[in-house]
């Protein structure tokens, strides 16, 4: 890739080491259950992901607000006191924090799963998670990166093809 093209790619597409991927994936894990949070953290670390844990959705949201490019993926419990998984999804959408979110729960009711997906979760997983599931969680990040790349290529193309409609008038 020519360096000129690289510069056009948005920062959010290039915040991981592509060679190591998915090792080094930066995951934010949220769960008010200290027992499960330590199990999840161990599983994520065993996948060579970089893990940050929070026991409250509010704290997770603060970290994401501070710098959304600090994390590649959020994995969050659904039912938590104060702020739950639904509210976290809503707030992330409001604040335009487009990091992929995986929701997990012991609750497996169809309506609950549907509500999560409608609110923007990219995946819903039943607790307790299996190692096999955690191993492939990176695919949501990969999908998003690809989407990002395609969108960047499109806007590059339109500039190169002399389509100035995208450019703001100064």
């Amino acid at each position, binding site marked *: 890739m020519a360096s000129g093209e690289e510069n056009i790619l948005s920062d959010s597409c290039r915040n991981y080491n592509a060679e190591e991927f998915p090792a080094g994936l930066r995951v934010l894990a949220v769960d*008010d*259950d200290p*027992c499960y949070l330590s199990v999840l953290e*161990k599983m994520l670390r065993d996948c060579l992901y970089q893990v940050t844990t929070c026991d409250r959705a509010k704290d997770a949201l603060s970290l994401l607000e501070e710098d959304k490019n600090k994390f590649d993926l959020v994995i969050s419990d659904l039912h938590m006191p104060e702020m739950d998984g639904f509210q976290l999804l809503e707030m992330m959408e409001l604040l335009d924090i487009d990091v992929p979110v995986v929701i997990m729960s*012991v609750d497996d009711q169809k309506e609950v799963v549907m509500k999560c997906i409608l609110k923007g979760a990219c995946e819903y997983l039943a607790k307790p998670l*299996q*190692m096999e599931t955690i191993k492939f969680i990176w695919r949501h990040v990969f999908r998003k990166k690809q989407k990002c790349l395609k969108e960047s290529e499109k806007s590059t193309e339109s500039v190169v093809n002399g389509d100035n409609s995208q450019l703001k008038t100064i």
Partner: protein
Amino acid sequence: MDTVTQLQRQLVDYTNSLFLEGFLNEQFNQLQQLQDESNPDFVVEVVSLFFQDSERLLNELAKILEQKNIDFKKVDAHVHQLKGSSSSIGAQRVQRVCIAFRNSCEEKNIEGCQKCLQHVKYEYTHVKNKLETLFKLEQQVLAAGGTIPMY
């Protein structure tokens, strides 16, 4: 049979019985597989968190169910938490009673809830004793110079 082998055999038999009798399920195996050289006490640490959390939740539940006006939403929230943490270590019997408990909550059945509380306390105490015995047996194997067999 030397001491170490005997102790190891005892440990394996005891562990198998916990699975056969439904105290523990596959999730407990997952915990054991996560234990490694860099986290040699992982299982004990996670199970200790489960004990702490459960005791807190059971105390809260007892308090709430003693009230004149029972806040069933609170009861349900606590039982949901207990269901979650018991499922994270594979404490199957506790998890099952939690399911029945949540049904009683939904029906706002006071007597049902009180019975479930007694039942879940019983199952919790039972699995706690079993796990403490398991950890003691593991310590005995290690003290005798053996290693914990992979199940």
